[in-house]
């Protein structure tokens, strides 16, 4: 084989394709021809670098949950995918917080949607909730916990109604107003519910104005969709990186759940 013939077969050689005899002949030539050996080596290095740029990214768990859910093959929640999501979310949260800092958080301090998005990001980044239910009835356990810690009644929508699987709860402050939060998932998408007293709405003029015009207010903050309504004199906001219909189902389930208080 001469140099031209050998170089014609670089693809086969690089991909370990073709027959053994061809590989033997090429190897024999490369042992004798320094120019071709260098040319093969450089071509292979360049090809490896290009392929490296195309390395598959980790699968998007939200996308796959949607895909498998619709095909009826939904898998149970797996810790591994959740950990991956938390890792990505941590990065997103870090970037998000930098952006918030840059833009000046104080200027938007009374915007409930921004505050809720910021808090939800912290949850995604791995911030532990104040309380994690342990029993087989996590919704009732969470309600019981919150009843002791906030002055206004907070419910937890049962999973059967909206698919909201609660996994934590706690107390926080939003623009100085006490709020309760519930964390969980709808399918595999992390979703948080924030509940404030009805009077607290006055601290958020933008949302107050929106709820004067519509019963349920939908908005978006960065990657997060949220729905907001006044239910039983409380302000309830549901937020998550999923579609508004799912969040609205959680909100409606919250409103129809019999009050234990």
């Amino acid at each position, binding site marked *: 084989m001469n140099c031209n013939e050998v*170089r014609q077969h670089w693809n086969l050689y690089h991909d370990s394709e073709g027959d053994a005899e061809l590989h033997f002949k090429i190897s024999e030539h490369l042992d004798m021809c320094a120019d071709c050996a260098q040319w093969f080596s450089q071509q292979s290095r360049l090809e490896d670098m290009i392929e490296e740029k195309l390395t598959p990214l980790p699968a998007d768990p939200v996308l796959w949950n949607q895909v498998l859910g619709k095909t009826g093959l939904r898998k149970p929640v797996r810790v591994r995918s959740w950990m991956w999501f938390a890792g990505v979310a941590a990065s997103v949260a870090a970037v998000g917080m930098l952006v918030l800092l840059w833009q000046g958080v104080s200027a938007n301090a009374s915007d409930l949607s921004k505050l809720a998005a910021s808090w939800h990001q912290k949850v995604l980044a791995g911030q532990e909730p104040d309380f994690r239910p342990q029993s087989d009835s996590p919704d009732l356990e969470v309600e019981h916990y919150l009843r002791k810690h906030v002055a206004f009644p907070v419910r937890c929508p049962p999973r059967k109604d909206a698919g909201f699987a609660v996994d934590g709860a706690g107390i926080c402050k939003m623009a100085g107003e006490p709020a309760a939060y519930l964390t969980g998932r709808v399918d595999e998408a992390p979703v948080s519910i924030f509940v404030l007293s009805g009077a607290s709405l006055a601290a958020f003029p933008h949302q107050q104005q929106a709820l004067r015009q519509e019963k349920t207010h939908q908005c978006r903050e960065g990657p997060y969709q949220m729905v907001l309504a006044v239910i039983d004199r409380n302000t309830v906001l549901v937020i998550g990186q999923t579609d508004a219909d799912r969040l609205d189902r959680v909100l409606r389930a919250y409103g129809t759940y019999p009050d234990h208080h």
Partner: protein
Amino acid sequence: MRHLEPIHGALESYCRRLLNDLNAVADVLQSAIANAYRDFHLYAEGTDFRAWMFRYVHLQILNCNRKYSRTRHEELPANLAVEDTWQLALDEPLFKVLLDDPEPVLDQCDAIVAQAMQDLAPQERAVFLLQAIGEFTYREIAEILQVPIGTVMSSLARGRLRLRQRLVQYGEEQGLLREE
């Protein structure tokens, strides 16, 4: 499900790189998986499930792209024989510079590689991606795409050449490659 989970990332990347309509990724995967599930009785346990699944995804991508009917991809002239491809690149002096030191160009051009990939003819892109992302052999690629193995070889050679040409062009435009 146990077969499918390890290849989520590869299937998703293949879709994202090959679909003309990026909003259709979920729909394409969903339809492909539904079809594969419907035909699962045809799958022989022990054979390559990855190749089997990629075949369904590829068919669904073709359907979707056909609907999207984008026509900006034009096939290379049919007379560009595979034997010529390496020589065309070799004749380019700047390509030699790229071969000698590819890092300065490749370190800066993720988007260029992605765009160059989009600019390949559909079959070249499919072959290249199945090789790069799926790590399939030529024979497996031929079976997935239902084309002769010679077509896989020529498509891959052309695809590689065009990617290199695009990199040289980018390197020249950015002043990263200069003739010695």
